[in-house]
């Protein structure tokens, strides 16, 4: 892929995170990428999971020899590092240890990388973040036009998700307060939390809101701009579908954080078998229920809407 000097339009960036490891982020991201590519959209997947870059495995290709390291160390342009993914319309860019890894990257390097990602010649750039809530991971997450989180019906995944989203929101808030010369307000409030009787997210938000009219406005604007897209993966029963609605509700009613529940994916043992056989699931089983569910949630992501519950309900009875 060749990057033009000036793009007509910068790509839409989707990032995928969520805190907990092993929830299916890489599987979902590669599958959604394939759906978009099959629709004729030009897609670039970026594997920014630097501890365990493995996106290529989900596509059934060998680990590319070139990675983001070359961008930082050899100053090779980002678009020249994009390799063939084996799927039409889709390219792949592999991260590497020391490129985006926690602490392994300087702030200026990070900004440069983000700037270049936004200039890639594609319709969609999908970034896989890996587990954890380190601020470098969060900063990459926040780069997105659409921030996607993957959870599974397990208490730890849900707990990590709340933590992840709260962190993401504060990181974004702090960044934007910086431009108002108020960068340290949040940290200071948290440092002196005992004094202000702040024990949790909501109390911190309330305290900050009370500081000044300006703070209140900034927080309200940031809260209404913030939006995550929730995908519920590995469900075993139709009852579990509603967990997505519940999580969305809790995020809104307890934390004031907006989200859309775009869809769920059933548990399918064939998925790991595909990985082991180095096949891409979406291509090997395009008619499977999971593939259909992924297609639907991709549509919902594109439209920025929630799953259509009336439609889902009809489908329910079919799930064992």
């Amino acid at each position: 892929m060749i990057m033009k000097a000036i793009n007509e339009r910068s790509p839409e960036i989707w990032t995928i995170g969520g805190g907990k490891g092993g929830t299916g982020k890489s599987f979902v991201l590669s599958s959604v990428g394939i759906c978009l590519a099959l629709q004729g959209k030009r897609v670039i997947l970026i594997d920014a999971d630097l501890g365990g870059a493995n996106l290529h495995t989900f596509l059934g290709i060998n680990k590319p020899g070139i990675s983001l390291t070359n961008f930082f160390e050899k100053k090779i342009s980002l678009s020249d590092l994009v390799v063939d993914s084996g799927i039409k319309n889709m390219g792949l860019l592999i991260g590497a240890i020391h490129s985006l890894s926690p602490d392994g990257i300087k702030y200026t390097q990070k900004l440069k990388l983000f700037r270049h990602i936004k200039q890639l010649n594609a319709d969609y750039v999908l970034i896989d973040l890996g587990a954890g809530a380190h601020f470098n991971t969060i900063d990459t997450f926040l780069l997105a036009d659409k921030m996607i989180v993957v959870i599974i019906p397990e208490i730890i995944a849900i707990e990590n998700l709340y933590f992840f989203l709260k962190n993401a929101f504060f990181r974004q808030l702090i960044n934007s307060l910086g431009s108002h010369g108020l960068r340290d307000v949040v940290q200071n409030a948290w440092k002196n939390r005992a004094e202000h009787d702040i024990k949790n997210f909501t109390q911190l938000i309330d305290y900050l809101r009370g500081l000044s009219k300006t703070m209140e406005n900034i927080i309200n604007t940031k809260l209404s701009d913030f939006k995550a897209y929730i995908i519920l993966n590995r469900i075993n029963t139709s009852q579990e579908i509603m967990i997505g609605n519940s999580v969305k509700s809790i995020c809104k009613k307890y934390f004031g954080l907006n989200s859309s529940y775009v869809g769920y994916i059933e548990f399918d043992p064939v998925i790991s078998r595909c990985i082991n056989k180095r096949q891409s699931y979406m291509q090997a089983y395009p008619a499977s229920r999971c593939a259909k569910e992924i297609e639907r949630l991709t549509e919902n992501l594109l439209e920025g809407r929630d799953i259509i519950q009336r439609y889902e309900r009809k489908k329910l009875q079919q799930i064992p």
Partner: protein
Amino acid sequence: MSGKNYSKYLETLELPPGASLSEIRKAYQHLKVLYSRESIVTLPIEDEISAEVKRQILRQIEEAYQGLLVSFEKEEDTLENEMSSRPEMKNYEQTSVELTTFTGQALRKIRERLNIDLQDIALSTRVQTQYLNDIELENFEALPPEAYTRGFIISYAEYLSLDSKKVVDDYMSRYSVWKDEQEKKT
């Protein structure tokens, strides 16, 4: 649908504009359970949220639901020509309050008037559709042991927003008669 707080209420129940009565009912049931019982979704933040906040959320949910029911009733009043083909919500709350006998047949009638499928109830209450059907048919021999049946009927009644105590007491009175007869036979 109109009304001053209509969109605010829908937002509280996390519903899109134009949601149907049956969707409103489902959302209400779902949220009521979510904010009054522990689950994997609420446990991780149990210690962060005060009982007062929870009560307040439940109050808002209740207010939104009741408010929406009222706007549906108003709609019924103005759209008289539609009345014949639509569930008569206007009378529903009233009748169900006045009702004292809750036979399986009566329960089914109420449910059908509300335009609710057994599958919807099954999904939300986790009671199998087949048992719900047996409840409506008063097919006592097919129902599980008494304690379970009691629980099922309470869930069913709550889903329809009926007075579950009244319903279960009345229903189980017939169940007991049947059970006594069974015991006499053996």
